């Protein structure tokens, strides 16, 4: 004889209601943020922000999985060494089965022929525990602050010795940064453009 047992109501411990769940939802943006605070897809802070050149005519992307929900006011990169005539665009994509999918934001052309901060106004609703892909589409190359490969988590293993932390596709900069990232991407390990997110 089967017994179908349904339990309803609220569990309490010492009179205090309890619920399931809890714990970490994401691996980035762990500490509560105030307006103006900035976060990125870094997992540890040592030697953060070292300069390195991005590859021309390449669209690179790496995951950002916030542990809290927040809305951004802007995204920033820092050009450390200018490139004559250099331009890039930064973007944020949703995730579909472990690949970047639909763009939530694509910046206008950022001028990397001068050094300093490049701030792209961007109001994006980041939801805790959701995977986003931070992307940079490079034109003529320049050096910008980077996240070191050792400061990021692995996506998938390329072989027994190397874990990829990002993916990319070759894409001429004269081609608009796509609204749908698409397939045919290459997984790779390497330093990534540091895209800093500012909370509104």
């Amino acid at each position, binding site marked *: 004889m089967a017994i179908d047992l349904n339990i309803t109501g609220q569990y309490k411990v010492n009179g205090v209601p309890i619920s399931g769940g809890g714990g970490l939802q994401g691996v980035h943006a762990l500490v509560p943020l105030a307006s103006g605070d900035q976060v990125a897809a870094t997992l540890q802070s040592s030697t953060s922000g070292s300069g*390195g050149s991005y590859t021309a005519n390449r669209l690179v992307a790496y995951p950002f999985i916030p542990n809290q929900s927040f809305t951004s006011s802007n995204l920033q990169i820092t050009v450390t060494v200018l490139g004559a005539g250099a331009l890039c665009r930064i973007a944020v994509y949703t995730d579909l089965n472990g690949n970047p999918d639909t763009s939530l934001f694509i*910046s206008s052309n950022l001028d990397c022929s*001068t050094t300093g901060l490049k701030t792209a106004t961007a109001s994006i609703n980041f939801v805790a525990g959701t995977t986003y892909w931070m992307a940079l589409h490079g034109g003529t190359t320049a050096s910008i602050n*980077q996240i070191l490969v050792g400061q990021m988590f692995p996506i998938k293993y390329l072989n027994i010795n190397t874990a990829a932390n990002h993916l990319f596709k070759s894409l001429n900069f004269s081609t608009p940064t796509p609204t749908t990232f698409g397939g045919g991407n290459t997984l790779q390990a390497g330093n990534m453009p540091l895209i800093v997110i500012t909370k509104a």
Partner: protein
Amino acid sequence: MPQVRNEIYDDNGLVRVEYIEVEELTTEELIAQKEAELLAMYEELKALKGE
């Protein structure tokens, strides 16, 4: 006090340029920064070589 150039963009392109005053780096901080840049270049070289 040194300044950092900050270019503000919207969907249509460059909107304005601001200059932000920043603390001057100490010699120790400058050395740490340069060491970090060297390390980054070394990591980049290793990645390019597939090591």
